């Protein structure tokens, strides 16, 4: 093979482009296992050319010190994000870099930290901080047949107040591995990774929860603030819409970019939605409860 073609092949083997819902990603990663895993999780999002406004993620292997210990530098659009010291940490930090970049540089959408699902054209958002059970509950609802928009970002288009999908692979923490297994998703846990202080995580491809999993643009009809406690029966309590605006504000990623317009967006959203506090318990019971509320 001529040298120039060989070089082009080598380059191509290290680069892949994706359109993950409304988010474009170009991944430049010479570390094969991480690139392969990423491509495997997002094979249905692969595109031939970099999407417009794609986030460019670079993984740059380097060696440091007398022992020449290998490490990886993870960059997003030429900004350094992470230094990763072991191989199982590379993929979670690629994902983390993308999410971080969306938070900082995706002003097109108002962003709320939330799991997002859709049922019969009705958007349901589950806003909460880390560790409240968003991803597990989102996985359970999608497994039950609902459609998936995200386990991390409610992206709201300010022009029409509709949700947009960012159907990233679900990032499940070690504490919920057993729940995944109980959902019959042991096989979906292809590999475990290390995500810094968050500990062991795994990634689940949305289509493994439900073959027609990916949802699309839809209005917010339900807002449920989950709080997980394993040993209790789940219950919901309808809450005041004004209170819901304040709670949404607490988990908005880019409120500082929107300010007054952000409050207006949140007020407009809750006016058209029913809002609840959700005491989440065992995932199957909680899924049933949420389904019964949404389906009336």
């Amino acid at each position, binding site marked *: 093979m001529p040298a120039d073609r060989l070089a082009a092949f080598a380059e191509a083997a290290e680069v892949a482009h994706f359109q993950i819902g409304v988010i474009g990603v170009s991944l430049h990663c010479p570390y094969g296992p991480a690139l392969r895993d990423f491509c495997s999780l997002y094979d249905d999002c692969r595109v031939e050319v970099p999407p417009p406004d794609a986030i460019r993620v670079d993984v740059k292997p380097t060696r440091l010190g007398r022992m020449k210990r290998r490490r990886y530098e993870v960059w997003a659009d030429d900004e350094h994000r992470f230094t990763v010291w072991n191989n199982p940490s590379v993929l979670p930090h690629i994902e983390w870099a993308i999410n971080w970049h969306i938070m900082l540089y995706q002003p097109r959408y108002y962003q709320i930290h939330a799991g997002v699902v859709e049922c019969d054209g009705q958007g349901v958002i589950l806003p909460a901080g880390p560790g409240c059970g968003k991803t597990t509950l989102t996985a359970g609802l999608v497994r039950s047949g609902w459609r998936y928009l995200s386990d991390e970002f409610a992206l709201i288009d300010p022009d029409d107040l509709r949700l947009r999908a960012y159907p990233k692979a679900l990032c499940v923490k070690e504490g919920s591995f057993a729940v995944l297994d109980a959902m019959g998703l042991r096989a979906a846990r292809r590999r475990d990774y290390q995500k810094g202080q968050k500990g062991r995580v795994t990634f689940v491809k949305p289509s493994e929860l439900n073959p027609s999993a990916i949802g699309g643009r839809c209005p917010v009809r339900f807002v449920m603030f989950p709080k997980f406690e394993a040993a209790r029966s789940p219950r919901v309590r309808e809450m005041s819409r*004004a209170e819901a605006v*304040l709670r949404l504000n607490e988990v908005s990623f880019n409120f500082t970019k929107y*300010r007054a317009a952000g*409050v207006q967006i949140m007020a407009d959203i809750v006016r058209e939605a029913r809002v609840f506090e959700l005491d989440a318990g065992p995932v199957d019971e909680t899924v049933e409860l949420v389904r019964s509320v949404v389906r009336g």
Partner: protein
Amino acid sequence: MISTVGSQVGVPVDGADRFVRRGDVDVHELDGEAVLYDLVLNTTCRLNGTAYFVWQCCDGKMSVDDICAAILSRFDVGGAVARRDVRMAVSAFWESGLVERMDDGVVA
């Protein structure tokens, strides 16, 4: 009464005092309650129905005593409770900078 305004409610107000809402505060009414957004301080707070009513009464013309009378005519509460709640609310608004006192040179 007010969920986030004035964690230290305690600025004394007099029955004759009159307060006026600041113009640079966005108000979003939701089911009789309200969310206020202070455009200058970049803070958000929630008012329950009674607090929102008091807020609407802060027009620079009604005194605190007038607002108490309005509360008594609108809500089923006793005079002592109305006085306490109105003073608490107005005090919290004032402390949070959401209203200005007319005596301080403000023109309604």
